[in-house]
């Protein structure tokens, strides 16, 4: 399963991806950058930037990317990050993307993630890829 991620000013998501050690494509910050094209099913890793009422949780570069129907069609799940200090809006970007795109929130973590998070994400992604493969085989049968 391919990974696509966005990382903003804090660089926390990028540091998490570096420690995860799996190939991943970074979404560009600038609207003027060439858009990222995906060709196979992928999981999106996305930080949260919500205000107190939960609005504007999904970073604009991620919205731009998901506005492309071809990219959306290949999205299988979302891993969302955030900070529990934001209370009920913690990792809200995951809930928004899940509701908009009809894909599951696979996992939530804080900031750059802990070692425990990395272990869970690695094994979770492996299980999810197997689960997805099985489901698509059943659908074809």
């Amino acid at each position, binding site marked *: 399963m391919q990974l696509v991620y966005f990382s903003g000013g804090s660089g926390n998501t990028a540091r998490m991806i570096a420690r995860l050690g799996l190939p991943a494509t970074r979404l560009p910050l600038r609207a003027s950058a060439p858009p990222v094209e995906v060709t196979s099913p992928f999981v999106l890793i996305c930080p949260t930037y919500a205000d107190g009422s*939960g609005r504007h949780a*999904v970073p604009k570069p991620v919205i*731009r990317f998901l506005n492309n*129907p071809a990219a959306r069609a290949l999205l299988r799940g979302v891993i969302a990050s955030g900070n*529990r200090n934001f*209370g009920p809006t913690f990792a809200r970007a995951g809930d928004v993307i899940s509701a908009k795109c009809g894909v599951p929130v696979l996992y939530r973590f804080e900031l750059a993630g802990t070692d425990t998070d990395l272990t869970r994400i690695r094994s979770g992604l492996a299980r999810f890829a197997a689960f997805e493969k099985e489901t698509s085989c059943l659908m074809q049968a």
Partner: protein
Amino acid sequence: MKDFICPRPVPRAVNWNRIEDDIDLDVWNRLTVNFWLPEKVPLSNDVQSWSQLTDEERQLTIRVFTGLTLLDTIQNGIGAPALMPDAITPHEEAVLSNIAFMEAVHARSYSSVFSTLCSTSEVEEAFRWSAENEHLQAKSRLILDEYDSPATPLKKKIASVFLESFLFYSGFYLPMHWSSRARLTNTADLIRLIIRDEAIHGYYIGYKFQRGYERLPEAERAELKEFAFSLLFDLYDIEARYAEQLYDGLGLTEDVKSFLHYNANKALQNLGFEALFPDDACKVNPAIMAALSPNSDENHDFFSGSGSSYVIGKAVATEDEDWDF
């Protein structure tokens, strides 16, 4: 003679239609949308709950809140203003002025709690206690020493992030503990508003730190990183003793320390550094985590749950003018 005196530099007028760093505008918008005042929280609903606490629990709570008031006072009057001369953009100065003002709101809101729940003599005693408490004074001094050093702007930012993202948490623990036991729940709502603000402050100052840090030569970066970890160790030593002094009586010290480790790691991540405390030392009591972020139960996601079942799309605000679908 007057012609030879170098004239006082006049700042550039701030133009919010010409943004040099998008994060300045993003953070300004978030901080202003999140603006609040203690009057919006119905603290008087906690009067009955307050009366059910023991004398020891009440004294502890007031003392913890005077300690938090001191940190907010420092950040309002000295900490955030000390960062202004180092601002790279005029917008950054404006954001820092918002941060400074919100710290004044936080400091003011503890007094709202006091005037709603406590007697004047109890409160006076606690303010005296905080002015004389060796640990509170020691951690304040360590931070103030950095704020007073104009030659090292990035060290000021490190100290500021440690105050915002680490030092408050020995105090924030207590209202979260009460909230997890359905005590002082309105006061906890107010504290959650403060925690939300401090999270943005720590993020923003940490972000500005990282922009300055990445421009430095390797040797200076190594020196700064060593300084950051060493300051954190020194602050942690004081915090551990402060926690023992406050929480030993209720048997909560070990629980508080896990919370301190967890928050120390998050403060380091705001600065772009790796965690210091291993995961095993950061196992925060789940009741405290639930009090911190209600409704964000980690067990219904695919990776943490039993495996093959998951729920899609809870009802959340998805409106944003940028979505095309």
